């Protein structure tokens, strides 16, 4: 049974979205379900700082020994942080998908976008 924290928002593409201390900035990662399905992550490609991304576009990829999975932008906005720790230790995505294994942070182009995401219950039904 995979871990689905109640306080986060989710996408159908198995990404989570969390609010941060900064207004209008969200942090994004892949879910516990996704990391388990992928297997041991050996490489994560995340978008460059400052790049503009559009919701539902492919903006990166997570590669494991077994397979590779696209990362979709859960919302539109500008990349204001990327997890540099993944360059040295991509396995953080496996060991701590909701913590140290985060991918990037987005400054939302429109704060209303978050209402379009799934809550934990809805996401849980999808992967259950």
């Amino acid at each position: 049974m995979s871990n689905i924290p109640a306080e986060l928002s989710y996408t159908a593409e198995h990404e989570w979205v969390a609010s941060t201390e900064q207004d209008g900035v969200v942090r994004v990662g892949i879910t516990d379900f996704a990391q388990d399905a992928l297997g041991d992550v050996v490489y994560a490609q995340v978008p460059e700082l400052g790049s503009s991304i559009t919701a539902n576009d492919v903006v990166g990829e997570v590669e494991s020994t077994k397979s590779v999975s696209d990362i979709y932008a859960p919302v539109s906005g500008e990349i204001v942080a990327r997890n540099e720790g993944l360059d040295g230790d991509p396995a953080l995505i496996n060991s701590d998908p909701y913590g140290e294994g985060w991918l990037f942070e987005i400054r939302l182009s429109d704060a209303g976008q978050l209402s379009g995401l799934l809550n934990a219950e809805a996401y849980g039904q999808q992967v259950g």
Partner: protein
Amino acid sequence: MTEKYTALYAEHEKLGASFTDFGGWQMPLKYGSELAEHHAVRKTAGLFDLSHMGEVWVEGPGAGAFLDYALVGKLSAVVEGKAKYSLICAEDGGIIDDLIVYRRGEEKFLVVPNAGNAVVVAGELAARAEGFDVTVTDASAETSLIAVQGPNAQTILLTLVPEDEHAAVTELKYYASVEVTINGDKLLLARTGYTGEDGFEIFVDNASAAALWQALMAAGEGHELVPAGLACRDSLRLEAGMPLYGNELSREGTPFAAGLGPVVALKSKDGDFVGRASLEAAKESGDGATAGRRLVGLKGLGRRAGRSHYTVMKDGVVVGEVTSGQPSPTLGFPVALAYVDVAYTEPGTALDIDLRGKAEPFEVVALPFYKRER
């Protein structure tokens, strides 16, 4: 198709395995981290359930001559106690399966086909046996197969073998087999594997399989033995440059294109064998040498890996297709096996793999990617 379960399924469940379908069997994919299992086999030891593999016994005065006819190799020349890698081909030269043949006596051979092909191979062998003085017995359903692979494999195994039989194990050569007492039972032990490491495969009746598995797990304590699933088996065999039926080998491909020309005994066998005429014609046409495509190893110069069915390109033109590929856990760079037009098979040739729209640089390298130090 009904799912099939090996006699060790409950053991895997107890160990928390994630399962995957392989050739109709529910097999352990991994127990924890497939990377950790991979590294354990390279550095210490891994324990595999290979009970999905087939076991077909060929016995009788005509056994050697029959296998020379049914398979592409010269099995009659295999010395008692030794084993040989071979192929069973169709009349048109297409590969039905790759298999290992163990000679267990003057008139007794054990043929081990792949899980997904075991029924077909057993059926083909039975059909081809007409006119030969042999009996073909498919013992796949009653036989389990457990492999211990890795540098510590011998040390672990010896703890379950009586001291007066230790020499039979320590002196056992690669691609050879012997009957020894393991965990109290007289069992067939082979020094074979699919990992590129030293290691053993043990054939055991289903009824004794769980006890042997548990004994091996216990014997492995202190020797860093871990249960290992099919995910790491695939990455291990790929690093070792070994083909996987269904990826590198198929009915559509010939042994020559797969780089397995030396396995086909066109010269050393005088008599006819199934597929001979087609294979002679394929060899004459230069298949895999001067014509068509040949299987090569590709080393990634970046970090992104090529995967099965991805396109291989030279200067934007399609010249091949990947059959297996992933990041190599041991080597730290992406590796792939690919069929490539013969003009581009020389080691050092720069090629690209189309990775979802972007050309990523790879280089043709000699196989295997990984070879253990002896």
